[in-house]
Structures are given as C-alpha cells and as structure tokens.
C-alpha cells in the first residue's frame, strides 16, 4: 500500500455562484508523479491551486471540504499559509523568475524563511545541481534571470522551489511554454525528483503524462472521473469519457 502524502476530501470550489470543482476525493501517494489530465476548463489547474492555497488571492473563491498534507489540515485557520507553501512548492505554467539575478532568485525564499546565512550558498548550489542547471549558470549567477532561455528559466523556477526542500511540488503545465528539447530536459528532471518529492503535475500533453506519471487522474467539467495507475488509465480506462479522451476523440 502506498503512503498517502496529500489528499482532498469532498472538495468543492466556487467562484462566486459558479461551482468549479465538484466533490473531489483524491489521494496522492508519496514519492510518485501524479498527472492531472482533462480538457481545457475541466478544473485541473484550479484543483492544483487548492493545494497551496493560491485561491486565497482571489476574494470570490469559496472552498469547502478538506485538503490534508499527511495529517495537517491545509485550510485550518490555525496553520500558517507561508509554512504550508514552504512545504508544498509550486511551478507555474509560464516560467516566472523574479526580476532579480539568478542567485537572488535562489536566495530569496531562503532568506525569507531565515535559513542560516552561511549555509545558503551551499544549498543553492545543490539545488541547482539537482535541477541540472548548475553547469550552465555557475559562472554567471549575477546575471539577471530573465536573460536565461525559457527552458533554463523554468529549471531555475524548479530549482528555486527545490531549494526549500518541500515535501510536495505542484506543477501547472510546466512545459507548455517550452520547445521539445527543453521539455525533454524538464521531464527527465521531474522523474529524477520523484525519489525525494511527491509531484502533482497538470498537463495537456497525453504523451507527456504517459512518459512521466505513476498515477493519472482524469477530470471533466469539475469532476474527477477516473483515477488510477498510468497503465490502467491509458490502456484500460473504465469510464466511457476517459476512453474517449485518452483515445483522442475530444479534448
């Protein structure tokens, strides 16, 4: 039996009057890659953003149900959102380095979470190495991060998340703005990261989901339709909708 790292229980989300997520129940196993797939507008990115409370930013979002990181209730008012986001990192669809140098992008969160000053350079180096970026940037850490290529920027964003040693990494279509070679590099990176982290990734790319996932969740119109191993969902889908979607009949 897999160890459950992150889970949603009877999760409903509304934007104003409109219900976006309908009674989602899902368990993400530790140290595995779970892909959320489904046609545009099915709520997969919205679901992903529930896990690190990014919906706190929009005032008309309302959530009921529960999300748990192991036993910690994420939406319990007692728990600090900054601490939760430190444990559950996020990589966005478009690479979004801060308008600072490469080094400052890495050190920013470390300083905020008050890591000991003398350890910071070492932590940064190891996170950049893990993200396969160190060799490319080690001589130009002072350079503005926006001068990097799109693929390098996205790996920097992953490194910036990894440097905090989170437990879960959420990725919202991290390759959709990248070329095939950069995409391949990120996919290899994701597979190598799963030994240390639990990864939840939203993707539009069915081949990508098959290449990197252990588990796949198919969503449609705000509902979780099918959830199972990558093998099962793609080779032997149980639901008619899933069959049509992975078979390329719609989406």
């Amino acid at each position, binding site marked *: 039996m897999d160890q459950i790292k992150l889970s949603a229980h009877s999760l409903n989300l509304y934007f104003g009057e409109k219900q976006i997520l309908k009674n989602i129940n899902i368990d993400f196993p530790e140290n595995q890659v779970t892909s959320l797939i489904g046609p545009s507008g099915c709520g997969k990115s919205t679901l992903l953003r529930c896990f690190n409370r*990014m919906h706190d930013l929009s005032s008309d979002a309302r959530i009921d149900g529960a999300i748990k990181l192991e036993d910690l209730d994420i939406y319990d008012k007692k728990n600090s959102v900054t*601490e939760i986001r430190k444990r559950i990192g996020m990589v966005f669809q478009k690479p*979004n380095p801060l308008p600072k140098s490469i080094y400052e992008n890495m050190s*920013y969160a470390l300083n905020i979470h008050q890591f000991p000053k003398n350890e910071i350079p070492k932590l940064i180096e190891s996170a950049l190495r893990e993200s396969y970026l160190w060799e490319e940037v080690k001589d130009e850490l002072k350079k503005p991060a926006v001068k990097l290529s799109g693929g390098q920027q996205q790996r920097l964003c992953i490194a910036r998340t990894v440097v905090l040693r989170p437990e879960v990494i959420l990725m919202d279509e991290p390759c959709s703005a990248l070329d095939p070679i950069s995409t391949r590099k990120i996919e290899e990176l994701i597979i190598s990261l799963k030994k240390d982290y639990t990864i939840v990734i939203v993707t539009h790319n069915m081949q990508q989901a098959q290449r990197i996932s252990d588990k796949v969740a198919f969503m449609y119109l705000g509902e979780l339709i099918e959830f199972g191993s990558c093998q099962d969902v793609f080779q032997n889908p149980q639901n008619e909708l899933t069959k049509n979607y992975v078979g390329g009949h719609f989406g």
Partner: protein
Amino acid sequence: MDVKKRENTDWLLKQLFKGTGMVTIVLLGGIFMMLIYNSIAFFAEVNPIDFFTGYQWDPGSVDRNYSILPLLASTGLVAAGSMLIAVPLGIFTAAFLSEFAPGKLQAVLKPVIEMLAAIPSVAIGFLGIVLVGPGIAKLFGMQNGLNALNGSVLLAVMALPTIITISEDAINAVPKTYREASLALGANKWATLSQVTLPAALPGLIAAVMLGLGRALGETMTVLMATGNASAMPGGFLDSIRTITATIAIEMGEVPYQTTHYFALFAIAAVLFLITLAINFLGEYFANSLRKFQA
C-alpha cells in the same frame, strides 16, 4: 461622385484635427516665447548674476533688489516639505489599495481620493488659515502658524491624489506572476510587496513623485494664503515664506506696465516654468520606461 464627396470629408476632417492638435503646440510655444522675450528685457536692465546670487527680493525699496534666491528657496522648501509628507503617505496608500484593501473598501476609497483633487486650491488655503495654521502655532507655541510647514502640509494634501493614483497604476502594472512566484515560495504579503512588487514598480513610483512635485511647485493660491508672505531668505520650516508663484500673483496686479519690476516677474516665471518643465519631462521619462518594461 459620391466617393469623391466622402474623400473630401475625410480630407477636411483630417485638416481640422490637425489644426486642433497644432493649437496646443502653438499655445505652449507662445507662452514660452512671451516669458523669454520679457525675461530678456529684464536681463538687459539687471545683471543675471545679481538675479541668481543676491539675497533680497525687494522691488519696492530704494535699492530695488531683484533676487530670485529667497523666492526660489521658499518654493523649494515648501515643495520639498510637501514631498516628505506626501511621498511615504501616497505610496503606502497606493500599496494598501492595490495589495491589501478588500474590494468594497477599494471601491469607496478610490473615488474619494480622486475627489480630493477636485477641491479648489482656495478652499485648501482657507483650511490652512483657519485650521492647520492655528494648529501648528499651538503645537510650536508661536504667534501664528502661517509658515512653510503649513504650506507643506497643504501642498501634500493637494499632491496626494496624483501620487496615489499614478503609484497605484504602477503597482497594478507589475505582472501578477511576480507576486504568485513570491507567494508560492512562502513569502508573506509584506515581503512580496517590499522585495518584489515595489522594486519592480519603481520607475512608475518615481514618475508619480515627479508629477506630484510638479503640482506642488506650480501651486499658487494655497501657498499665497497660508505661508505668511515674507519674501526673505527662509531659515527653516517654521519661517514665513513667499514662493515664486505667490510673488507673481501678488505683485503682477499692481506693477506698472513694462517697468523693470514688471519684466522681473516674467523672469521669475520663466525660471519656474523651466523647473516644472524639467520635472514633468523626468516624470514622463520614468512613466515611459515603466511602459517599456511591461511590454
């Protein structure tokens, strides 16, 4: 036939719009030329070195001193004081509005701030005489509070709407992805604001300050009413002062036509014009650099 007619309409309207556009340029050029022309007449009679280095503006006395320095110092002092108050207040208000204020409060506060700009300057000057001035006098134990500090407080109120509105635009223009990046790393709102959003908005904030400063430098009625009208070299914020604008407003009505004194008022107006022009250019320059950064 019909096509020809429509083309003619186009041509006519194009000329008309061109004409209205040109009017603005002609007006600006005309005002500038008038100031320069009269200033030259002044400098034909008074040595420019005396004008810029003397310590007295005293056209009524026997000596007839025409030195801009005390007036310039007054204008500078009161404007600088107003910025010391208005810049932190304005930028923090803008940051509060765009980052922290709930939607409803924002919907109330924004129009109210913009309405602040609609208060006539004479009303603000009145407020300075009956309210702020006496308050300052009481606070510092003085006879009256009509001094530079009083003017600075009032000008700060007048510059606030400009500074808040433009700062808020600048802060809003910072891409949302920056904030998300920072928040997703576990930074709180204050760290995100002070370390990511405000530095990214800096060119726009500078533009806001420049345009607010331009407003403070050019303001006339308020400072005329509330700063005590003493055209001596100011020693500090508690001295009465007289700005360039107030001097022109007071003396222009009484000065005989085309005398040295008359030309002198044009000369100080020209100096003020050049200063506000430079400040506005700087403001526009920084505002444009913000637009470039968004693209």
